[in-house]
């Protein structure tokens, strides 16, 4: 029996390792469906046959759970780190000044309405009184994944994304980045929910427990998440 796991886009780099590790320890194959957390939540409401939901925040899984889509309470499995990142050799330690210069034409952020990382970015920029100043430069990716795509193809000079992108060994493109001050945004606590669809699916439960296990935690840490 396979397990369908809906994962927030920021987890894409880490999920490859998780999938292999879970398969080697249990022999169970998981299908990964990734997207902005908000999209996945909407799809679950509309009947998508997912077993486990790994969100990028706690709000989406909580509301699903509240409306009876969950089998378990929402568990926080990791805490995300927001970075600004570029393919160009830029000194991003002073990114706040840098992004205002003319050399930076476009900056990608994830759509705040459906991607928690985008929400956090917006919050941080607002806190620094920068959001309005940058408004004309912003382009909105559907999710963190799309922000990553824009960064790596060089269509934007900078993008706000997740630290796991940097820690992804399979990514061969050299990237330059700087961590955004954690004080400027509410911590990105990422929550998990075992869904109604998984009822009777032992493998799904196994996967749910595995994510909270130490071996999974180790992997999350490797990819820059706080536990």
């Amino acid at each position, binding site marked *: 029996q396979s397990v*369908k796991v809906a994962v927030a*886009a920021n987890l*894409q780099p880490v999920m490859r390792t998780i999938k292999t590790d879970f398969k080697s320890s249990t022999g169970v194959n998981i*299908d990964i*469906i*990734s*997207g902005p957390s908000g999209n996945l939540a909407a*799809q679950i*409401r*509309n*009947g*998508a*046959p997912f077993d486990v939901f790994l969100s990028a925040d706690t709000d989406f899984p909580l509301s699903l759970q509240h409306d009876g889509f969950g089998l378990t309470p929402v568990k926080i499995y990791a805490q995300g780190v927001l970075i600004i990142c570029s393919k160009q050799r830029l000194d991003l330690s002073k990114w706040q000044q840098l992004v205002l210069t003319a050399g930076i034409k476009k900056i990608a952020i994830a759509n705040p309405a459906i991607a928690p990382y985008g929400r956090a970015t917006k919050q941080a920029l607002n806190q620094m009184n920068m959001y309005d100043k940058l408004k004309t430069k912003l382009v909105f990716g559907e*999710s963190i*994944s*799309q922000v*990553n*795509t824009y960064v*790596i193809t060089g269509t934007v000079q900078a993008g706000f994304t997740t630290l796991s992108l940097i820690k992804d060994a399979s*990514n061969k493109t050299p990237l330059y980045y700087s961590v955004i001050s954690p004080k400027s945004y509410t911590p990105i606590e990422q929550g998990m929910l075992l869904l109604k669809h998984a009822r009777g699916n032992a493998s799904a439960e196994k996967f749910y427990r595995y994510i909270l296990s130490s071996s999974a935690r180790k992997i999350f840490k490797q990819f820059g998440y706080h536990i």
Partner: protein
Amino acid sequence: MDFSPIWLTLQLAAVTTVLLLILGLPLAFWLSKKRSFFKIITEAIITMPLVLPPSVLGFYLLLAFSPQHGPGRWLQQVFNVQFVFSFQGLVLASVIYSLPFMVSPIKSAFQQLPVSLTQASYTLGKTTWQTFWHVLLPNIKPSLLTAAVLTFAHTLGEFGVVLMIGGNIPGVTRVASIAVYDSVEQMDYAAANNYSFVLFAITFILVTGVFVYNRYQVKSPLE
């Protein structure tokens, strides 16, 4: 490389095209004949799905077929069929979505045929249906082929509706267009390239084949 998205896409496009041929031909014929106000409205309605963005269509299909409420719930409870996040759902959406691509070119072609062909066939005692089948249809072959190719192609390229009601489920609704999108998102550009290339190759062969076949259909008597 995982070939299931491509296989799925081809299946979807083929099933849709066949269904639409069965459905679209008589419809196009009916619409091509003298117009009534009722027909104009019908035609406008048929054309709607084409004019609406796939996301709008997807939205309404989602509302209609979500098992949370309405017809979707009823279907789920009574027949245990679910149209969202399932292959049959994609087929239904594609049929609605591509209908005008089948109907419009065929209808125009029928309108451009001389009336006397129909009249001649009628005097031979042939029914409307026989006339349609043996006289009118064979004389609009190029347009028919165009319509079928457009329909097939439009379905191959379907993305928005699938993204909305399909949900990217491997082997069920992850068609090629979604797989490419997904690969790009995962920064797996090699996979994106592979999918693109295979689609390219398949369709290039298909399209060239059709055109080469069609070459012999183009009339150029004596010269």
